[in-house]
């Protein structure tokens, strides 16, 4: 079942599923960002939608609750004129592979075109993509601790809007890298797009053992880690990390790794501050910074819609490449 070819691409190298950033070419990521830029302009219209996916059915298949991510996917699909079906499945009802497959086959039988999948298991989106009917595209909206590729694309989209070229940038990702699908996808996206330096900052308990294979520089303190960076990405700290004994307390974490106005001064004066949300104020970031002039956190949210529109449009349509005459 593990095929050598990249599951995400069709025979001509076009995006078919969007499961992970890993293995995608830089041009594919740039195409997504460019297309998202075009979609970001639609909001000038009175009718904020385009008919690209008219007649298509997108199913939001959420095995894990996330109102925010689901909402932006739903809005993105609706702005492309697709019909949207939201299905929330509690993990208890469908934790076994068999019932998961049965459910997928049932949805296939209803002639759906795209599954947007959020699941607590790493690899769930790959598994679904391997087992769905060939006409269905799968978009990974977060699988376990593995990947959250649309989040990484909206983050790089936001960075590009503020900083332009990626080549000279220093980006620091702060916090729980080990358990973060967002961080993993961000690192792949930033490296693929040619960011000058990607840093991760956190205590050893929250960093993967084998961080070298991710292609990042590791720092254990903010003082050296934030020096001269252009972008600071704060990750959400899950409460259960405290219960798991990975950290003594939120207080102590904030003291060393929380982003305050003082610590932010270590970065470049024009550095931007990002956070995938939802924010724990006073745990990983102070309100002063989260609501301050360098914060682009709310922008990330609105950019999320344009980026998700771009990914959906690319996965459901053919992509450029084949020289086709425009019908006039």
């Amino acid at each position, binding site marked *: *079942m*593990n095929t050598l070819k990249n*599951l995400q691409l069709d025979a001509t190298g076009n995006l078919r599923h969007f499961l992970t950033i*890993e293995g995608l070419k830089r041009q594919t990521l740039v195409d997504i960002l460019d297309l998202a830029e075009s979609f970001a302009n639609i909001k000038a219209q009175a009718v904020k939608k385009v008919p690209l996916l008219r007649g298509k059915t997108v199913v939001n298949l959420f095995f894990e609750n996330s109102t925010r991510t689901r909402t932006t996917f739903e809005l993105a699909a609706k702005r492309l004129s697709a019909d949207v079906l939201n299905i929330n499945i509690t993990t208890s009802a469908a*934790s*076994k*592979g*068999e019932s*998961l*497959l049965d459910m997928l086959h049932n949805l296939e039988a209803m002639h759906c075109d795209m599954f947007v999948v959020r*699941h607590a*298991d*790493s*690899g*769930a989106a*790959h*598994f679904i993509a391997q*087992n769905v009917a060939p006409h269905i595209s799968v978009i990974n909206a977060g*699988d*376990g*601790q*593995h*990947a959250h590729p649309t989040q990484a694309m909206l983050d790089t989209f936001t960075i590009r809007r503020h900083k332009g070229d990626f080549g000279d940038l220093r980006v620091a990702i702060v916090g729980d890298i080990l358990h973060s*699908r967002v961080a*993993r996808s961000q690192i792949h996206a930033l490296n693929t797009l040619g960011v000058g330096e990607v840093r991760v900052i956190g205590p050893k308990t929250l960093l*993967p*053992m*084998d*961080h070298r*294979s*991710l292609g990042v520089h590791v720092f254990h303190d903010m003082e050296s880690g934030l020096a001269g960076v252009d972008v600071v990405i704060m990750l959400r700290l899950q409460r259960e990390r405290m219960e798991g004994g990975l950290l003594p307390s939120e207080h102590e974490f904030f003291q060393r790794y929380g982003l305050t106005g003082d610590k932010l001064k270590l970065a470049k004066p024009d550095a931007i501050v990002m956070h995938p949300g939802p924010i724990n104020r006073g745990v990983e970031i102070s309100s002063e910074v989260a609501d301050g002039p360098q914060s682009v956190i709310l922008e990330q949210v609105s950019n999320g819609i344009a980026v998700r529109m771009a990914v959906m449009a690319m996965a459901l349509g053919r992509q450029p490449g084949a020289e086709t005459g425009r019908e006039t």
Partner: protein
Amino acid sequence: MTGPIHIRGGRLVDPSQNLDREADLFIRDGRIAGIGTAPSGFEAQRTIDAAGRVVCPGLIDLQSRLREPGQEHKGTIASETAAAAAGGITTLCCPPDTDPVIDNPAVAEQILYRAGKAGNSRVLPLGALTSRLAGEHLAEMLALQESGCVAVTNASQPVHNTLVMRRALEYAATLGLTVFISSEDPWLAGNGCLHEGQMSTRLGLPGIPECAEVIGISRDLILVERTGVRAHFSRLSTARAVEMVADARARGLPVTCDVTAHQLFLTEMDVGVFDSLCHVRPPLRTFRDRDGLRAALADGVITAVCSDHQPHDPDAKLAPFADTEPGISALETLLPLLLRLADEKVLPRNKALARLTTGPAEVLGNGLGTLALDATADVCIFDPDAWWQVSEETLVSYGKNTPLLGWELKGRVTHTLLEGRVVFERNDSCY
């Protein structure tokens, strides 16, 4: 009882006698009756032409799950012993993690009865070390010993409580029972499902660190030393753990160890993009570990290779990686993989075969694994030059779950004899 059999013209490879030459083999009354020349009055009822083939002792597998009782949808004693025979295996040890657990004589006897009825290979049950394998109370090891269990083990469930482990080893030592130990620190292993390293980092899956095995083994080695029990460490996966066993052996401790055949070939990298067929416990490790295991196999620190056969129904592997069940269907690839090690010059062929015959026989201490005169006539005949492809069609086992699907392997069993009886004979068009 079948009549006398004459195996003609084969190459006899028997590590127990340092034998590696062309010679005929004569079998009568379930025993080896002659090597090279027929005993007086021998009249073959059947002659097997073994020209161009290797004739060796029937293989001994120290660890294979037959799934009966409890999980007959994955395999049965009849189906999996037939697969064993197709792989040249005449003796296999079945661990006690059946349902119900082999922690009382009734289950052991039932397995022996069913295996005898199927008649494909010799099944030796391993009894539970602790009751229900729960790691709390000692199992009735004496009763298990008397009902035919050849050793005791807690299978893949480590005994968390070190005091219980010590008592269990002491009691087994009292009875002269060998203990099979799979060591792993349960807290370090946690809910891990693959090696903690490059792949666990990339895939965002919880990993099992090398130190989980190393710390588990070091605790158990110290207890073995204290209790004087005869211990066999099963399915080592790290080079570091093997070094520790080597040290213990050098100090004269009565310990042996084995490794699974797949650990000698596959690494964490084979997990690729969530390939659930590579989900095994202990997990596939690094290239460094694989090479360390290979070196220890050649050195003789590792004296046995087991299949760790775990057949599954297709659904068991159809889920996101962590939700799939670990294990590989491995009986039929055991011999070809060892032959491949010889081809790759890891160790000579007769030594490779020793790891499947004399090595495990010494662990069991039951006098099997030899073609010596008058020994039980368990024989494996294989064509060392025959290539075949591992596929759902070519595998006899119920379980088609192997990452080797699609691999071309060299070396194919043509006949298997159990106690002088042909229990397997390949009827492919080429044979």
